């Protein structure tokens, strides 16, 4: 009985919240309502999938990525020289790959509704849109829609949750340096979580899933992480290259 009353109270509370919009103070912006701060400089700590991320894997080495036949065919035909000739050295720097690259990130709020992630390696910029403006279609970084996914906490408690990002409309690129493909139909779902260590270090943990009906037989699910740096002293711009 007590539980039923509690649930009713919860529904009532949330409904009231939902209706309050036009009468109270202006809704808080995504920047104001951030669950945690991920701005600043971050360096990739490449300790997982190391031989696929920080060195160029051998042609045809697709370990861990479940390609379908079409995907396998493209991976087996990978020709970095051809990409260079076509001016497509940035194929492995698209949104589905850049957070796995050995890179530094500089994350800032571009405005109240847009997070900007710059990567020094490959000089890429991602824009995570909390609003509804559509842009970026067909570029390496595609279009990223972001939201703070909140888990309701107890009364009086600070809300908890994650930054969720869904990226679509990416220009076809490579999941890895050695030509493992993703198509324009690929969708990238990411969670960007910040964890704080007792020693004062902070890490950005990126959980990602790439789904691609064209080249992948199964979603490619992985995670990577970045450690917070005090400033941009180690920022080093590197151009896109086809091989590390």
């Amino acid at each position, binding site marked *: 009985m007590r539980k039923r009353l509690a649930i009713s109270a919860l529904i009532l509370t949330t409904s009231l919240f939902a209706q309050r919009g036009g009468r109270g103070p202006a809704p808080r912006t995504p920047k104001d309502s951030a669950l945690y701060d991920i701005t600043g400089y971050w360096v990739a700590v490449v300790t997982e999938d190391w031989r696929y991320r920080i060195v160029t894997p051998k042609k045809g080495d697709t370990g861990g990525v479940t390609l379908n036949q079409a995907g396998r065919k493209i991976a087996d035909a990978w020709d970095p020289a051809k990409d260079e000739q076509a001016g497509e050295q940035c194929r492995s720097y698209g949104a589905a790959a850049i957070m796995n690259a050995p890179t530094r990130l500089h994350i800032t709020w571009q405005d109240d509704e847009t997070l900007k992630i710059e990567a020094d390696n490959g000089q890429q910029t991602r824009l995570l849109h909390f609003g509804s403006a559509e842009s970026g279609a067909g570029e390496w970084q595609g279009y990223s829609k972001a939201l703070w996914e909140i888990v309701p906490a*107890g009364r009086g408690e600070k809300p908890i949750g994650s930054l969720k990002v869904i990226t679509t409309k990416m220009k076809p690129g490579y999941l890895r340096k050695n030509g493992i493909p993703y198509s324009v139909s690929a969708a990238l779902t990411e969670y960007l979580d910040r964890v704080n260590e007792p020693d004062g270090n902070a890490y950005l943990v990126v959980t990602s899933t790439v789904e691609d009906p064209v080249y992948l037989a199964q979603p490619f699910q992985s995670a990577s992480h970045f450690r917070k740096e005090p400033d941009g002293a180690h920022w080093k711009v590197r151009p896109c290259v086809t091989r590390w």
Partner: protein
Amino acid sequence: MVNAMKRSWIIGGSAASLLALGSFLAFGQGLDFSGHTGLPAGVDISGSWYPLPFQDSGLITASGALAEYGGIPLNEAGRLYALAWHPSRIQGRQHQCMGYVPPYTYNQPGNLRFWEERDPYTQRLVAIKQYWQISEGTRTIWMDGRPHPPAYAQHTWAGFATGQYDGNALTVYTTHLKRGWIRANGLAQSDEATLVEHFIRHGDRITYFSVVKDPVYLEEPFSRTYTLGRSIKEPDAWQYDCDDGEQIIGRPEDQVESYFWGRHPFVREFATNNQIPFLATLGGPVTMYPELLDKVSDSAAADRAAAAELAPSAGPAHASRASDPTPTDGEIHVLPIQGNLSFLAGDGGNIAVQVGDEGPMLVNSGAGKISDKVIAAIRKLSDKPIQFIVNTGFQADFTGGNVKLRAAGSDPSVLGSFFSGQFVDAGKGATIIGQQNVQNHLMALKSPSQGWPSDTFVQARRRKYHNGEAVEIFHMPNAVTDADSIVHFRRSDVIATGDIFSTVSYPHIDVKNGGSIQGEIAALNFILDRTVYKHDEEDGTMIVPGHGRICDEWEVAEYRDMLVIIRDRVQDLIKSGATREKVLASRVTADYDDRFGATSGPWTTDMFVEAVYNTLHDPPARGSAK
């Protein structure tokens, strides 16, 4: 804890709560969430899970290739340990059923089960339990705020873990881990490692993020992720039995294969097969960061740098980076071991105390600096006077308390016997038992006669039945001295090793007094012949070392392996004509110094290596080891 309960309840699954959740989310973002699938982010991790096979797919079945160390922030000791590691080590008896330590355990190719344990009356969260199929390990993450045990307590595969909810993650702090693997290709995680972990749940997936700090083998914290998927269907596959046996018939117990640095035949294989710069495969902090791209851009320079990393750098030996668990607060600390046995730490060498219907039997008496406190601590364990003190050696750290502890006891077994006619004080104090050489050495040292063993033996095995159990005292010839014994309490299944085994230093091999590396290794193998683990190299026969913390056979096996490997290196150098000075300069202990080494104090690494050299160069003439 209360928060956790609330969260669990809210996410608990009723349609009403899901409706409420949707309202919250919609309010929070003003976005349409239709089309989003899966559960929202949360912290309740209960259920059955398995490692997703996409990330590090080539490493999931355990090992990785030899010399595949890229992305691991190894220090020199960690790299050298791995370079010396020979894959046949896993065929050694004590290595066949080695357990898994976190975080490595979350990369196992088996099922994982997580569940909550709540107080049945208050429903408050007491612990989160985890079970992993491979190695059949169980882990308890205490959520009730209890403190971690003292440093001298046992280490286990799962370690001692406490947790708390932290934002959208379950954060876990772990200490007391056994020496395990970062990767089972020789990349060791030492027993000094501590661990912080975050379990971050996103729907049917957990992103597991861990940071290992290991002062022994790592140059800087080792952070990494694993990803786990939720099993919707109960997997019903939870067992993975292991029982060790002879895999190489006739292999001597003192044979532990290792690669001598610079002679590893497969050290370049992984790099060559995968077209990776060799330097990058050797690990170290730089291999984790974008700077690696610059480091390997000049291939000739990178190859030169790699060549320098295959052997110890020039320079003095390193001192241990491990912490000594021995209390130094001037108090005696008591820890129950199992059965009738307790462990007393705080007065020099460790003291084991057996209690029961008869008077306490002690193994060793400590340094004698705070004997009154030792006596007071024993009185809390037993109201009977101390009856026996067994000395495992004559060193002052073990016999310093003999006089006072003997005086505090009595031995009714000789009181009123025919001994009474021969010794005025027969039975008036505790009886001190020791191998004859203990008495000989104490007499030679002119220590007070009241502290000499009165019950000496010369046979290989002295036996007694006391406090309801068989007690065996075995002489270990020419181990650290010519007077060493170990004591095995058979029903309690506890072995006190005296100075033959230590968790804080290399063995103090006193060549002048009959010690030898050959006898030391033989003594450790003798101990290992008597131990039985309960499950996967854990528990079962418990070990009280002369110095350091409570152990089981795993630590003894590791210590034995280390000494065999060091012996073989010194022997190899002697065979090649190396002088004592050359052997000392070769840093043959470079992979172990960060754990056991000393550059100052009464027993330095150089003194230990010299003792090994001396006894290999001029083996002891008498008292052949068992």
